[in-house]
């Protein structure tokens, strides 16, 4: 395991339930500053929920999450919003503001958090849109963009303020191979050049592992495995191996917990 000296985010003994269902059970992990950390795991393990907990949009049932040494869920509302101004988040759906054009969306964080003149904001927006290949789409409304384009525009907005810490929720989903390559380079470049701390939640194993410094594999509310990408690729744990190689059969169930198929199928006729 890599020795983590400078911790940016620390999750301690986190438990979180949605109704009766336990999403996290005594989960602990640390996210190092200035590195790209990938959080992976089967669908429904609460990876997006973890990002929302880090961002203070949800409150843990037990345990704590600290960002820069501050326990997120104990912060006052004002302080929480100040902390969020230093974070960037790329939502799975993009979550662009539908009443604004693409360029207005990207300019929005700059307008509310800085006193920069309009001309400078305009230049910054152009740069960010150029980085994601959407300079030509600046005057389009979000409804006119495809899913992949909307996510790229949302990425431009997330990086508009050059935040200290970026959370990417499925950044590669729905991207064509060219856009995928550009995004991988962009995320990697942002991290190396500006020293952002990045957390990527993704199912695209090869793409994510190609840029991640450290990987957490989460399953059943706990950390199943962690380490550098090579360590996980070479893991002999059958559960890790099944996920990393995408095998349908193995100890990690594909099906959501249910009674046996046979019983359910023939139960009514017997």
């Amino acid at each position, binding site marked *: 395991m890599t020795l983590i000296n400078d911790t940016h985010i620390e999750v301690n003994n986190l438990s979180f339930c949605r109704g009766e269902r336990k999403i996290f059970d005594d989960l602990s992990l640390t996210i190092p500053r200035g590195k790209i950390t990938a959080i992976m795991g089967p669908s429904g393990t609460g990876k997006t929920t973890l990002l929302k907990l880090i961002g203070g*949009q949800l409150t843990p049932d037990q345990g704590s999450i600290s960002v820069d040494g501050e326990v997120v869920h104990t912060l006052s509302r004002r302080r929480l*919003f100040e902390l969020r101004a230093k974070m960037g988040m790329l*939502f799975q759906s993009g*979550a*662009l503001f539908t009443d604004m054009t693409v360029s207005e969306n990207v300019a929005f964080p700059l307008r509310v*958090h800085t006193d920069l003149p309009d001309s400078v904001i305009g230049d910054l927006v152009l740069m960010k849109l150029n980085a994601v290949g959407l300079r030509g789409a600046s005057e389009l409304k979000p409804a006119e963009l495809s899913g992949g384009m909307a996510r790229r525009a949302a990425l431009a907005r997330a990086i508009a303020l050059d935040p200290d810490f970026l959370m990417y929720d499925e950044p590669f989903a729905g991207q064509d191979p060219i856009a995928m390559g550009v995004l991988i380079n962009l995320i990697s470049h942002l991290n190396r050049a500006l020293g952002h701390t990045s957390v990527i939640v993704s199912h695209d194993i090869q793409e994510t592992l190609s840029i991640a410094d450290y990987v957490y594999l989460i399953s059943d509310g706990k950390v199943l495995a962690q380490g550098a990408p090579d360590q996980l690729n070479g893991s002999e744990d059958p559960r890790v191996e099944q996920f990393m190689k995408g095998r349908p059969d193995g100890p990690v169930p594909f099906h959501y917990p249910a009674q046996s198929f046979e019983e359910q199928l023939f139960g009514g006729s017997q």
Partner: protein
Amino acid sequence: MIQLLQKLGAKSVNRVAAVGRAGQLLSQSLIAKPAPMTMLPLLVRQLYFIGVLSLVIIIVSGLFIGMVLGLQGYTILVDYGSEQAVGQMVALSLVRELAPVVTALLFAGRAGSAVTAEIGLMKATEQLASYEMIGVDPMRRIIAPRLWAGFISMPLLSMIFAIVGIWGGSLVAVDWLGIFSGSFWANMQASVSFSEDVLNGVIKSLVFGFVVIWIAVFQGNDCVPTSEGISQATTRTVVYSSLAILGLDFLLTAMMFGDF
């Protein structure tokens, strides 16, 4: 039996919790450091969507209700030879009751449902979460301008409704049925008191506006973020608002005019 009690208890707890959340929403959105430079453009935009775009339905309804009042009033009063009092009847009915109540009902249907659906959809598409993560409080940016726009628009719309209604009444009574315009307006002027009738009507419309827009933003913000959830929240806005308007109208009327 125990299960029934449990369900009843859970429902009651949910209702009380919802009232608490609605109060929290109100305090979080309204109690804050004033930021006129940011708030003013947002407020003007919402005044347009909530107030100006409701004008057509308010004016048309006001006109027809005033005309119907004029006609009905004339038909009844003419039997007693008191048709000159139509103006007084139309004005008092409108100013005291119909303008605030009907405007609020129309307002709930036109603007309230639109506000709920808009906020609900913003929640479903994670736009509210996105504001939060950018470090902008959606309570201040989204909820507060809509609340203020509702408070401001409703009394103005109610006044416009009353004015157009009275004009509609005069169209029927004076221009069509031939009542002497001097007695129509003089009777009205003599019997409508500003401090009792007009002011009480304005107070009613302020209360209704507050309740309707509060219900609308709360239902939008509290809805289950799915298409079904938004549809249910929109329905709840119209139903709860209408019931609240009618219930409160009785209470307010009893308080204002009940000292017999």
